[in-house]
Every structure is written in C-alpha cells, then in structure tokens.
C-alpha cells in the first residue's frame, strides 16, 4: 500500500505542480484533452434528436432522413 501511494504521488505531483505554476499550463492541458481539430467530424453535422421534428423538416425540404442509432448514445462513447 505504501509503495502504491508513493508511486501515485511521484507520478502525479509533477504534472500538478506544473498546473499550479500558471494559467497557461492549465489551459494547455485542458485544451489537449479536448477533441482535436481533426477528430470530431460528426460535430460538423447539424444533428437533430427529435424524430418527429426531423420528419417534418425532411418532408418540408424534400430530403431523406439519415438516422444514426447505436446501443446507447451515438455521440458519446459509442
């Protein structure tokens, strides 16, 4: 247990020390955990989540529906 705790402290503290050293470091870390520029192409798509409203829009605009379903929420972890 002591060994484990020591490892955790040694491995995590330098990173946090850097975080505490300035807002710039914090912002940089925050930014690089977010989706990267080329990553979230699906976010460029104007998704609708209300099927009824989407059908109305499709009928009004003369377009078919593109329905994405997954076992769970498609735009999250799935």
């Amino acid at each position, binding site marked *: 247990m002591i060994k484990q705790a020591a490892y955790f402290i040694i491995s995590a503290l330098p990173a946090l020390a850097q975080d505490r050293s300035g807002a710039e470091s914090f912002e940089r870390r925050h930014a690089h955990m977010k989706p990267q520029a080329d*990553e979230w192409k699906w976010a460029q798509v104007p998704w609708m989540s209300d099927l009824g409203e989407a059908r109305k829009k499709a*009928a009004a605009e003369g377009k078919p529906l593109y329905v994405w*379903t997954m076992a769970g929420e*498609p735009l999250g972890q799935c």
Partner: protein
Amino acid sequence: MLTFYGKGKESRIALMKENFVPVILDGYLRGTAAEKEFLKGCGTVGNGFTYISASGKKLGGDSYLGANGMAKALEEYRKLPEEDRKPKVVRPEEVGSSASLPVAPPSGGLRANVYFTYLEQDGKGDHRRALWHVEGQPGEEPGSGAGRNQVLTFVDKFWLTEAEWKSLLPENPAKGRSLPLPEAIQRRLVRYHALDMAHRSTGDKVRSATFSLTVEEASADGVTLRLEGATETGVAFEEAPLDGKNAEAAGLCGAELKWLGTLHYDAKKKAFDRFQVVALGNGWGGNRKQAATTNFYRGGDHRRWPMGVAFELLTTDRPIDRIPPQNANPYRGGDAYFGKGK
C-alpha cells in the same frame, strides 16, 4: 463513429449535410410509442445508419463502420413519389407512458462537456495524447484513418441542478477562504468521472476522495473559485487482474486522479460562466483485448495508463448539447445520477 473519423471523410459529411436530414437516436431510447412504431416499420439498423423517407420508406442502411450507402439511398429516394418524399407529418398525440425518451436537462441547471482521453509521456517530462490503436500496433497519427479504432476523445456530460450549482457559492466569499465541495457534487464527480471512461467500471468503489474549494477572487462582479482534489477509485493497482475475465463488469478496474479547476460566477449574469476542470492521473485493469463498448485496446500489459479528464461549461443549446450524462439515462443509473434511489 468511424464514418466520421480520419481523412477523406469530409466529402461524405458534405453529402450528408447537403442531401439528408441527420438524426441521432439513442438505441435504448427510441422516442414516443409512435416514433418507436415508425422506426420498427422502417426496419432501422441496430448499430449504424438507416436512410428513410419522411413517410417511412427504408432506402438503405449501413453499419457504424461506414456510411457507404448514402449515394444509392439518394437514388432510391429520388424514385419515390411525392407522397413519400413530402408527406404531411403529424405528430400523434401520445397516450400512456410508453415513451422512452432521454432525460431533459434540469431547468436552470449547469451543463458541462466532459472529455476523456488517454495520455502518454512525451519524453520531455510532460504528457501528450496517446497514439496507440486497438490492435496494439504502433499507430499513425490520430486522424489518419489507419487502424480500426484510433485514439479519440470520449465525451460525456456533467449536469448540476440549479440548487446544486448555487451550493457552490459561499455565503460570505472572501479571498483565501476555503470550503468543502458540496457532497452531492463531489459524489457525482467521483462516481461518474473519476475513472477510465473507456473501460468505465470501477464498481462504484471509492477508496478515497478529497476535494476543496478556495476563493481566489471575490468582488461585486463575481467570485472565482479554485477546485482541488484527489481521488482513488475502483481497485488498487496490485489488486487489478491482468486480463481478468469480465474484469470491467466485476468492477476490477482502478484509477487515481489529481484534480484542479477554476470556476467563475458572474454576479451580473447570475450564473457560472466558467467551469473548467482538469483531472490527471492513471487507470488500470480491464480486459486485455477490448473494452466491452468501445473496442479500445490497451495492450496486454498490466500497467498504469496515464489519462486525463477535462470539464468545460456548455454555453450552446443545440440538440447534441442536450444529450444527457450517460449515467443519467434510465438504462444506466437514472435518478441515481441526481442522488435519488440507489
């Protein structure tokens, strides 16, 4: 997801945006009774994409690995008569409570995106985003389209009710004053986000969690709070089995994270306009081959995987911004997310 990943997918997205009305549906929550009946009648694809006319004629479908049938679906669509392409759509009145709909955001609540990604040492004493792939082979840069599942960012949501976010504000904010993080908020952070989101399960086991809020600035304009914390969840590293069968289901993963964040309350807006939090640390455990839901391979070694979680206030209100936290869904924790029930 792969449909939208890697190079050369822009043309596919452009085709979709130009010619289709894109809809996302949680496969476990397919809407009202009428909507479920509509989808059933269309024969929608289980995990993937279905192309449907507004009237309900199925035009084709693709698996989630690639939306290759769009052009053919468009051809089929153009052959349809007017009544299928432009039907009068009336939303039927719902009777009873058979609807299965996503949870709506709490009125007046605070919403944030939560991002999770694996990290690795960059050789310069810092971290960078991990670059490995599901097959465990040295990967190309993320976004290259190579490999089956590139490293990517997992996303979830974090919701606070109005009463919960208001509980973050001290009654008498004075610079330097320290106060505990409200229990309900701490519980939500720890239970749902202090873990490896790709491998997910820590069995809701919390070995330790300490958080504090410190007033950094306080004036008539607002209050700035610094959040700090440390969490240990799941099983300890030594107790996590290597390639244990159903390790995730059994909650035999673990994680240890250090937290740091800045929260700003704008007195004029009477709302938080900054909720920016980072958690850095390591995760371990889980299946050797792949996580149950993500196909995310972590190699065969039993070792600590550097990882990071970032929270960012949501300021837009698009349909995708209203997607609930995954654990607030009724097929996960439901009301337990808000501290009700189990």
